[in-house]
């Protein structure tokens, strides 16, 4: 009877999975374009170049991000701020800023390298293009507008979620393994766009609840 018992055991497994999928919560599939999943807090999505709340660009054209990039996909050229009407509060500003999204591995080392928190990552990942040139993002696409909104590559796409560009993964430094645990729950890292008035990352206990 051994084989027959195994046979019914197998039937029970598939039957149970079917019942779970139909009436229970066994189905984990999300109908993606119709419904969106809640992304993890530290999701690494498309980059955003930030501004200060007064409209100044944060980027000072130091090229540290380009140096940190393991994929060599960032190209930066700095330029002295024009006297009288500075673009950034420092001496120089990022005159050219390009990221080749075909090469980018979304490791966020550029975000860590940036001394002024000028480049951060959003949670947008729909970036497919029909053209290799479109995959090279310039300041036109990356830089946030003075009002704090971020340009979307396909603003007319019915699936475009503009809010995704405005949620930053700005919690990286506070609770990174190498970081200090005391930063947990403290507003220590400036999230991407706008006035930088973001809630601190919840502590692990709060996440577990």
């Amino acid at each position, binding site marked *: 009877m051994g084989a027959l018992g195994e046979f019914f055991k*197998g039937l029970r497994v*598939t039957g149970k999975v079917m019942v779970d999928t139909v009436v229970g919560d066994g189905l984990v599939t999300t109908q993606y374009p119709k419904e969106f999943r809640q992304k993890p807090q530290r999701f690494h999505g498309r980059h955003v170049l930030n501004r200060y709340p007064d409209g100044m660009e944060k980027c000072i054209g130091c090229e540290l991000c380009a140096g940190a990039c393991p994929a060599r996909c960032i190209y930066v050229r700095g330029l002295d701020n024009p006297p009288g009407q500075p673009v950034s509060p420092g001496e120089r500003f990022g005159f050219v800023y390009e990221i080749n999204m075909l090469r980018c591995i979304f490791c966020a080392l550029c975000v860590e390298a940036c001394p002024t928190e000028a480049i951060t990552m959003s949670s947008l990942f729909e970036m497919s293009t029909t053209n290799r040139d479109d995959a090279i993002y310039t300041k036109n696409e990356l830089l946030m507008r003075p009002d704090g909104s971020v340009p979307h590559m396909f603003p007319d796409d019915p699936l475009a979620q503009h809010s995704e560009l405005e949620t930053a993964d700005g919690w990286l430094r506070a609770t990174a393994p190498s970081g200090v645990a005391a930063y947990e729950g403290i507003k220590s890292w400036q999230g991407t766009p706008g006035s930088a008035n973001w809630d601190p990352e919840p502590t692990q206990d709060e996440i577990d609840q």
Partner: protein
Amino acid sequence: MDGIDLLIVIARVVVVFVILLGTTVLNVWIERKVLAKMQNRVGPNRAGPWGLLQTVADGLKLFFKESITPRKVEYGIFVLAPFLAIIPAFLIFLVVPFGRPFTIGGHEVILQGADLNIGVLFILAMSSLAVYAVVLAGWSSGSKYPLLGGVRATAQAISYEAAMGLAMVSVVMFSSTSGDGGTLSLAGIVERQAGTFADVFPNLSAIAQFIPRWNLIPQFVAFVIFFVAITAETNRSPFDLVEAEQELVGGFHTEYGGMRFAMYQLAEYSNIFSMCAICASLFLGGWNGPTWDGSLPAFISGVLPTFWLLVKTYALFFVLIWLRATLPRMRYDQLMQLGWKRLIPGALVWLILSTVVIGIRQFGLPWNPQ
């Protein structure tokens, strides 16, 4: 036979054709959907509501595809084989009674393609003919994988047809104990399963009146053997060696494309449906079921038997899908062992056993003749 009778015959055949085509479209969808649920997936859901039109979309796609003819094929047989597959698949459903006969304007209409008095033999003949399509397709394709599939199909059909036929024999013999004499007509076998066991065992009527008089209960072993055999006969998993995708790239239909391939699919799924319907007719009482004549409108009471047959057929179909979702494909020698060492001896023993029991019930003990 006057004109109206002829029209009724034509209408019956058309209805059988439509039932088979319609259920095939539905069955492919049902199978994919149920299989998906058993594998924790969603299944087709893009074409139409709940993906109901998925099969129609697939069919349309295949319709517009080129029917490629590889260079090495035996052209005539290669083209003929899909037709050989589809004709028995449609013919086999002709003998299945799919509803209670009714009278309309003085003409009796039986809901069956044709009430052959050799219906059971016809089923065996047609299911054997269907194997020719597979074998000839495998051979004429001029390619090694289809050939292997075709060779396997022959061996599998021979092994399992025997068990299937023996299981049918015990059913036919058992059903000859009720009614007047034996019958090979499927309609006759179905009619003899009407009522409950209270008719047979009047002193047990308290319990037995709730048990329908299906052949399933007295012939349970035959049912199991028959069900395993039809699983193999329709090339369903776990006996789908004939079209094993992983080893044979699809087996006998590897070289087929477009509408020729679609015809194989159609034949396969209508075979599955017919075989489930035949199994339901032989063992599960066919269209017998409560109809509540008198308390329900006549039309509903007339349609209910068809509904019961569909319920039983789809219950069996569901079990087939369940088996497919659960069991891995058998190895070739395991298939042969199961066929020749288990099913055929089992069916023979059961046949002798039920013969003896029927004989004793009918004629008494041999040493104590009445």
